[in-house]
């Protein structure tokens, strides 16, 4: 023990604290820790069960499950599945998933960024409060609502916009049309998805913009900046990576959307790069479509498709969260 006089410069070792917490606290911490790990458990189980169910299909199809774009269940006359001819290739739907989601992000990001700029730097407090509530409410709207609204209200307008796009930008390969069918195209789905993810991207961007250091904003104003030059010089650079993260969160949400896409998109199993043409699909809506009439073997293929979708959205979301998280400390 160091009760005796200690020479001023001799620094004792740090004490090891060996006190054991009370039993009730150990129980408490144990239960809470168990609860905390539930998310790991659930995500692990999702992966395990989908992989287990889809394993036979993934093994027989191999890499073609991702790269192939034919989805055919071939049966003989008595209805038995001929395994060698049956093809499950997800590529067409993966392309469709990316197309719809990217269209959505391309439309939603500028609108969301402008809106969040307005909410952070332009709106009077009263309007700001109302609009934040309204946008949060919109994020809570069920997807079937967007689906019905998109189908009945938005689609006619979007078809008209699609015709305009074709007329003026038809030279761009994406906007080419061989057959003039504009209804229920990936473009329509993209616009509906854009409406769905605007609230998400807006609220993430707004949060980041509102963290812009006040001293920098004031410094910009003190140097004679207009509001816009302040935004350009201070807020945008500060929030850039956060906005990218928000956009990726929106992308993840758009990629996994099922019902809204199913409602407004003509789900056809084919590769369609022409976004204005009324055919396409995404993985989620394809699962919903095929599920009703699928036999046991195809169900397994759908499970495997679900696994691919799960991993894809997990990846996008994780990246997005990493970007949003790291953006908080950027530019300090």
């Amino acid at each position, binding site marked *: 023990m160091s009760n005796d006089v200690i020479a001023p410069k001799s620094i004792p070792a740090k004490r090891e604290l060996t006190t054991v917490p009370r039993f*009730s606290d150990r129980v*408490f911490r144990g239960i809470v820790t168990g609860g*905390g790990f539930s*998310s790991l458990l659930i995500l692990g189980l999702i992966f395990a069960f989908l992989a287990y169910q889809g394993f036979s299909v993934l093994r027989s199809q191999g890499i073609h499950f991702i790269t192939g774009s034919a989805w055919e269940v071939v049966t003989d006359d008595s209805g038995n599945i001929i395994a060698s001819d049956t093809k499950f290739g997800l590529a067409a739907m993966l392309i469709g998933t990316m197309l719809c989601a990217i269209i959505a992000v391309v439309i939603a990001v500028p609108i969301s960024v402008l809106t969040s700029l307005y909410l952070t730097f332009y709106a009077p407090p009263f309007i700001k409060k109302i609009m934040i509530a309204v*946008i949060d409410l919109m994020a809570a709207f069920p997807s079937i609502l967007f689906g019905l609204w998109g189908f009945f209200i938005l689609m006619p307008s979007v078809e008209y916009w699609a015709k305009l796009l074709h007329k003026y930008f038809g030279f761009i390969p994406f906007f080419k049309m061989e057959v003039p069918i504009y209804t229920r195209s990936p473009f329509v789905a993209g616009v509906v998805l854009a409406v769905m993810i605007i609230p998400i991207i807006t609220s993430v961007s707004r949060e980041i913009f509102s963290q812009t250091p006040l001293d920098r904003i004031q410094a910009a104003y003190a140097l004679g900046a207009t509001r*816009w030059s302040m935004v350009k010089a201070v807020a945008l650079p500060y929030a850039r990576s956060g906005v990218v993260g928000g956009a990726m969160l929106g992308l993840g949400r758009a990629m996994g959307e*099922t*019902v809204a896409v199913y409602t407004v998109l003509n789900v056809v199993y084919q590769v369609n790069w022409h976004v204005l043409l009324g055919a396409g699909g995404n993985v989620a809506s394809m699962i919903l479509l095929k599920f009703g009439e699928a036999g046991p073997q195809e169900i397994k293929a759908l499970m495997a498709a679900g696994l691919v979708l799960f991993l894809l959205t997990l990846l996008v979301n994780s990246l997005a969260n990493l970007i949003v998280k790291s953006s908080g400390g950027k530019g300090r």
Partner: protein
Amino acid sequence: MTTISAVVPQKPWAKSSQEKLIAAGIVVLSIIATYAFVEVTPLKGKLAYFVSYFFIYVILDSLYSLTTHGVSAAKDSIAKGFITAGVFVAVMPMISILLTVFMRGRRGLNWNLFANDMSVNSVNDPIGQGGLLHALLGTAILVAIALIISLPIGILTALYLTEVKGRFASPIRFLVQAMSGVPSIVAGLFILSAIVYPITKSYSGIMGSLALSILMIPTIARTSEEVLLLIPNDLREAGVALGGTQWRTVAMVVVPAAKSGLITAVILGIARVAGETAPIVLLTGGGERVNANPFSGPMGSLPFYIWKAFAVGTEESITRAWAGIFVLLAIVMVLFVAARFLGERRTSK
């Protein structure tokens, strides 16, 4: 005579009435110019009016700024124009959705909706026959069970992140966020693959609830975490300094202090899943009659009712679908306003 006149508070930085007049003048001028422009050019339609109004307004406004305040002011005006347009575009769908649901849903609404189920009626029957009692009851049961499962898990997760702050807190926080991005159809497929196919081999309400829990847990966990983080550390220290164990401090001080926020978390969780359609379609079997037993038999629900009615596509069924959406949206909005209200009280305290 030198009386000291009372000093009136002024805001010299506020817009003068002259400036306000000029701003209004620019708006009026743009409207007139827009009409003229659309009339003389081959453009037509609402879109043409909106787009040309926008550009004409921005041009006029920035020209005015340019002449009065110079180049940077003109850029400021242009930016403001674009930002205002962005807000307009963002809010338009919201207004359109609310109006549409109100106008179209109204037609299918009647009191029978809340008294009958669809066991003896088809969706093509005239409006007024049949109802969505089964769907309302089903949704209530589905969500209630999901809540019973998700609430303890969600709050324990939040407590782990804020109170225990274990070594794994930051990976767990990351996983919870990742979990909130799981597509709803994947949650449905998971329950199918893990429980329905290998074990029960039949659809029932509880399967839907399990899938909804997967979607609900991250919402509750994240909102609760935010709420618990707002509880000042002082309170925890005061509890412990009074001789409380951590468990008693959390139970008696931290959680009660966060109560209204935790209720908000619950409400947001309910709002998140109440309208969830894809897993419901996969898992509950979607019955047409009132079924209060979540463990056996198909169970109807609002999203399923809407989904089916929409898929049939006749005039009556579509009207029913809109009425269903009306009810669903009303529920979501009431929940949301309640959550806001509680949140307001929390922050104002």
